[in-house]
């Protein structure tokens, strides 16, 4: 595949995230496919938006996207895509780029669910429009023409990437249905988290023992709340808790100290001493089983071992 060959090269050559280059390239291909009728300006704009974090790409991109366009020629009428479908595609493209634009800055610390859930909702909406069986104005379905007419199945792949991302981050667990809002449990957790973090901030300066003492209750409350929440949590909550824990245990060193070494050693050495006593006493006091050797009954001349040895030598 020429496509994949090019895509593999780019991360090595250029300092750019694979996803960014992929996105750019994909959008670039949309341009090719949707050639003349397409509003090239919009597509290009979205391409620029996606790849804007990487400066290395910027100068070359306009040239890359324009040269092939001029080489394309048009297909006959009946193979072309209706305006209705192109509209849907444009909407999808717009929402896709919005969502990605929201996602990337939310990568660290992870807030992909809480910040971008509405973007995902509208993206899902746009995709549903494309993929639904519903007939458009010209009694045509865009599903086949947009999703399945080539081996690349670009729109589908793009969307399923985002869907995977959404599912992997378990975002459904902190967003209410229909992507309306963040659910109460998560809000509550975030409130607690903010309390704890502000407490950390307050005592951050100077001695950490102070912090450990004063923030313990709020931290413990947060910890308990976290463990009481459902088993699967969205990545935002999980990550926030992880970070807080790392702050607490590693940065501020508030883990429990190992201060009971003496009693533990005492009890264990007592336990370890018991078998010694047991074996010694059974060695000294238990009567040993004695063995009586008995000679097998044989013919007189063959009884002893001496005989064997004699015969061997």
């Amino acid at each position, binding site marked *: 595949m020429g496509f994949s060959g090019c895509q593999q090269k780019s991360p090595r050559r250029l300092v750019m995230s694979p996803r960014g280059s992929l996105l750019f390239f994909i959008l670039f291909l949309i341009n090719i496919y949707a050639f003349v009728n397409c509003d090239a300006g919009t597509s290009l704009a979205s391409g620029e938006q996606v790849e804007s974090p990487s400066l290395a790409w910027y100068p070359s991109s306009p040239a890359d996207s324009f040269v092939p366009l001029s080489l394309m020629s048009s297909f006959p009428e009946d193979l072309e895509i209706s305006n209705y479908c192109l509209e849907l595609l444009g909407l999808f493209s717009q929402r896709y780029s919005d969502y990605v634009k929201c996602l990337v800055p939310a990568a660290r610390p992870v807030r992909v669910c809480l910040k971008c859930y509405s973007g995902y909702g509208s993206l899902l909406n746009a995709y549903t429009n494309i993929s639904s069986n519903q007939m458009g104005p010209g009694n045509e379905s865009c599903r086949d023409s947009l999703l399945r007419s080539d081996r690349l199945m670009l729109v589908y792949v793009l969307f399923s990437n985002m869907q995977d991302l959404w599912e992997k981050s378990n975002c459904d667990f902190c967003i209410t249905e229909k992507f309306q809002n963040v659910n109460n449990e998560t809000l509550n957790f975030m409130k607690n988290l903010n309390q704890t973090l502000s407490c950390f901030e307050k005592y951050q300066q100077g001695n950490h023992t102070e912090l450990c003492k004063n923030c313990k209750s709020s931290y413990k409350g947060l*910890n308990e709340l976290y463990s009481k929440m459902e088993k699967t949590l969205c990545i935002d909550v999980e990550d926030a*808790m*992880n970070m807080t*824990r*790392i702050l*607490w*245990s*590693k940065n501020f060193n508030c*883990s*429990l*100290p*190992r*201060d*009971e070494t003496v*009693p*533990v*050693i*005492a*009890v*264990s050495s007592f*336990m*370890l001493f*018991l*078998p010694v006593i*047991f*074996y010694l006493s*059974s*060695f000294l006091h*238990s009567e*040993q*089983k*004695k*063995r*009586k*050797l*008995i*000679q*097998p*009954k*044989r*013919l007189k001349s*063959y009884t002893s*071992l001496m005989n*064997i*040895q004699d*015969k*061997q030598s």
Partner: protein
Amino acid sequence: MSNITKKVSWSSRGDELGAAGEGTPLLNGSEQPRHSRQVQLSLDYDNIENQLFLEEERRMSFTGFRCLEISRWLICGLIGLLTGLIACVIDIVVEKLAGYKYEAIKQNIERFTEVGGLSISLILWAVLNFSFVMVGSILVAFFEPVAAGSGIPQIKCYLNGVKVPRVVRLKTLVVKVCGVICSVVGGLAVGKEGPMIHSGAVVAAGVSQGRSTTLKKDLMIFEYFRRDTEKRDFVSAGAAAGVSAAFGAPVGGVLFSLEEGASFWNQMLTWRIFFASMISTFTLNFVLSIYHNNTGDLSNPGLINFGRFESENLNYNLYEIPLFIAMGAIGGVLGALFNVLNYWLTIFRIRYVHRPCLQVMEAMLVAAVTATVSFTMIYFSNDCQPLDSEHAEEYPLQLFCADGEYNSMATTFFNTPERSVRSLFHNQPGTWNPLTLGLFTLTYFFLACWTYGLAVSAGVFIPSLLIGAAWGRLCGIWLASIASIWADPGKYALIGAAAQLGGIVRMTLSLTVILVEATGNVTYGLPIMLVLLTAKIVGDYFQEGLYDIHIKLQSVPFLHWEAPATSHWLTAREVMSSPVTCLNRIEKVGTIVDVLSNTSTNHNGFPVVMQPAKLCGLILRSQLIVLLKHKVFVELAGSRLSRRKLQLKDFRDAYPRFPPIQSIHVSQDERECLMDLTEFMNPTPYTVPQETSLPRVFKLFRALGLRHLVVVDDANRVIGLVTRKDLARYHLGKYGLEELHLAQT
């Protein structure tokens, strides 16, 4: 004479001969004082072709034989089914109880980590272990000592032809199952796999007889199978079913049975054994799938589940083969060390810790110490790992780790051994740091070595695998850091486990297949085989396998595959026991009773002679007792015409617990009567001339499963009798052929 003496016992070692003069000789130990009257007998695998037998065979129709064949298959199916169910019961109960135990301790530890007082958790852990093991140990020590250990040595002996007393009784099974549950839940360094083999064998012996003498229930079915030959076949099927339930390895089970009892084997039997194995692993699978709420999912064979080795990283390359072989050598050395230590420990136990109450105390102490050592290790471990959602730890302990992390020492110690093995195989690289693994290997090695041989029923498979997996993983980590080749530690853990297990038990083909089947990956066949091969070669250089050591120490006249190498110059005349107590063909009842009740000689087979001393048959003690019981005297035969003739059925009904001679009352008048043995004796016993060499005699015994071999001179006069014990005493030592001394307990 058939039995050289009553209460014969075996000294195990050749090199002990020298020491026997000055020091106190070793003693044989398996027999408890109160059981010391038990004699190690042999099984009668040879068919007694007397007239009764011939008559019965003549009466039996073609369909009768068909029915027999069908009922053999039926029995094998039943054996598989019941063995699988027993395995399920053990598995589920262990899982539940261990779950409660670890949950309780975990909560306790969590509470005390914060407020202080962790030594209380330590005591709680020790006490819990202690009490479980106490129950198991009391059961074993006071009720059924033969259920101690893994039972594999006993089954090996049984299949070899030695009648280990009470080894296939129902009571033994009950004690074994309860004992295993207690000892695994009690946190000892043991597994539940070895005992499954014994359990399967007991099930087989019980089912095939269609009755239980313990419960005094006779279903009146399968009467034809009430003799040693048939029972042995079923017992081998049961052992195979046990292996297959334990490891999910049906083929391994069949091969295990073949390896241990191969001299009596044929194609149809193997096929039936395989059937039993299949049924057993299927049953276990099915019932466990119901238990785990995914009925019909048949992909969990076996009690121990190694998990799936399917990742692409687990391929191996040619350059790794030498590494595997080196690991095999390490396994052999460590295994030999294990065996030597356990050997000395067992001798100490035999000498000094032989009273049941002492044995119980010892087991309890081991349990407490195991808990203590584990706790101390966990307490002082600094190895913290982040919690991982994919390999969710069953009971993660945080202790002094940062929040969100768990103590990785606790994954190995604070868990049932099976789970620890699995996590060593499959947890991703970096789950343990090398120090943790090293310490774990060291402590677990000694704990396992100390534990094996206690009066609890428990197997050595899992501890060996665990030790091996730990140091194997260590090797993997080390290789990855030294050679900068990317080695998956899980793969090396598997190889290490195979090496360690092979180094300890020294089984060959069957163990390879068992491991391959348990791994579920045929690609590992070659490395596992190479590793086991090396481990066996290296280990045998130092010390025998663990089971062989214990067979020797239990003073069992075990016949190995071959006679000692340099024994061709020994003739039957030198080996045999002489003089022989013979009976006349028509013998006075008084004489027979006297011979049988002579306590100084406890003979089991009596050559029947015609005057003067010409051999015409062989009769067994059990037959004579049945004859006496039914008063088959010549004088009475005429007077009671209506009385029905004695049939083979009467002999079978008394099998396998023939009454002792003391319980049979013979009046003074009856002592003067005569008994005609012609009908009942085996008219064609195997005989050898007196110049036959020892290996020849040995081969006859090993291949035919003989119990008595009459030595005759050219005039067919009885001059001696060779039994299993006369053969088993010869032994190839450092200074050539040595004769072991018999000991009396």
